[in-house]
């Protein structure tokens, strides 16, 4: 039984079929990307996994149980960050921590919040409002919020799409660091357990997908989009960006993905 199981999922909006017969098995602890042209329904699929919308047909199972609406075991980092603009960076994370870790003491909640703000490097900026910080910092806040709620699956919707190349690279590294459970802190380890987080991210950046992921699910073009080939990324971890970019394996995977996206699942002439 797969950890996250998407079986024969359809999504229709009125007479328009956005997704048709989507099947995917996600393993516990892997990083997997959904890649495809914009408008192919990647985000629609992600929002169904998040439980924010329901499949018209088919089923999504997490650890064998069908999903019922959204829940904190599936942490979401939204495409536009979705921070509450009237709360500070600290409060944005804290309110989620307090809601999800209800049974913990106030001290523990504060400690969890602090820890994750430090991991994403925002502790110094914790009193600022979202309107006062850069896009990268907003994204870090959203990431800290999602991570601090200790999800089983982290769902990222084009998480670094709106950022400049440098910030993007830094945040990708930070994400991997957290995922790799390189957490020294015993308290956090106790909360998190020693299992790696499962990460599912939506992207249209091929390099990002290869650098971050174990597998890449390529989506065909809509309407009636579906998951075509799932490409394995057999690059060893930890990965070094420069080494990776020069490696043969990287070039081959990139060629294959490009071929899939531009030839096999090419955008139909409009």
């Amino acid at each position, binding site marked *: 039984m797969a950890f996250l199981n998407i079986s024969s999922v359809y999504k229709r909006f009125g007479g328009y079929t956005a997704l048709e017969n989507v099947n995917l098995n996600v393993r516990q602890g892997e990083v997997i990307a959904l890649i495809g042209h914009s408008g192919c329904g990647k985000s629609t699929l992600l929002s169904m996994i*998040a*439980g*924010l919308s329901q499949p018209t047909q088919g089923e999504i199972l997490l650890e064998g149980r069908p999903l019922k*609406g*959204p*829940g*904190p075991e*599936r*942490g*979401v980092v*939204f495409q*536009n960050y*979705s921070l*509450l603009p*009237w*709360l500070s960076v600290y409060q944005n994370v804290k*309110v*989620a921590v*307090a*809601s*999800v870790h209800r049974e913990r003491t106030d001290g523990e909640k504060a400690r969890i919040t602090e820890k994750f703000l430090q991991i994403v490097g925002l502790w110094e900026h914790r009193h600022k409002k979202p309107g006062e910080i850069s896009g990268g910092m907003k994204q870090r806040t959203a990431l800290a*919020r999602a991570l601090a*709620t200790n999800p089983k699956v982290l769902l990222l919707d084009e998480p670094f799409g709106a950022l400049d190349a440098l910030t993007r690279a830094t945040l990708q590294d930070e994400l991997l660091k957290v995922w790799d459970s390189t957490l020294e802190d015993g308290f956090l380890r106790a909360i998190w357990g020693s299992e790696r987080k499962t990460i599912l991210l939506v992207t249209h950046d091929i390099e990002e997908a290869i650098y971050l992921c174990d597998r890449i699910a390529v989506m065909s073009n809509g309407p009636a989009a579906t998951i075509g080939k799932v490409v394995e990324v057999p690059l060893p971890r930890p990965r070094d960006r420069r080494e990776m970019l020069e490696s043969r394996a990287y070039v081959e995977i990139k060629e294959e993905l490009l071929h899939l996206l531009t030839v096999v699942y090419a955008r139909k002439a409009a």
Partner: protein
Amino acid sequence: MERLGRKSFSRGLVVPKPLLAGFNALIGFFILLLVWYVLSHTIAPKVPDPAKTLGIFWQLLIDPFYDNGPNDKGIGLQLWLSLERVFVGFGLGALIAVPLGIVIGASEGLRAMLNPVIQMLRPVSPLAWFPVGLAAFQASEQAAIFVIAICSLWPTLINTALGVGSIPQDYRNVARVYAFSPWTYLTRVVLPHSLLYVFTGFRLGMGIAWMVIVAAEMLAGGTGVGFFVWDSYNSGQLEYVMASILFIGLVGWALDALLGQLVRRFSHG
């Protein structure tokens, strides 16, 4: 850049902005007085002219809080009594309007159900509500407050519902994903998002309340600026009526400016 931009245009005399605004306002008032003067000396000779009115205005202004029994109180005292009623009536209205607005804003079904009712009751005149209040409470004081409450709550109700109904899907998704409790959702999402709308509603509602108070007190009698206006008219002292209008206008302006400040404060934060 700055030096090139602004200052080069006004090379000579630089007039400070507030001074200019004050000067413009003076011109506006001067035009008002002129029109008033002309009208009161042509087509409406019974209406006191600005000179007479301002004389009384000044007389009322320098001794605002005297109290010589029920039929002879200073204008300040009357205005204060009116303001008290407005605050109580408006406050009661808000206590109903804000929670109800939140509930209506949160539920599309309820909105569809209650919107026609609101649209029907909203334009009803305070004069029509007054007998209803009298019948319900058997007392003119309570009836006046009832009229203020029921006439001033609509903008608050409608704006609150509008604010709550316009919470972006993104924020609602955050609340759903991170399992916010209803209380957290209310205090961390609904209220902060809607506050600006609520205060805009307050501002409009307060304007209505202040308009309604004069009518309500004319009917209720006894005290307040509305009673003062009516009493002055009945005793043939039209200069007092005209002077009262100036006072009513100025207090209404001040109330609006005060709430406007509040709205501005929340729109920045």
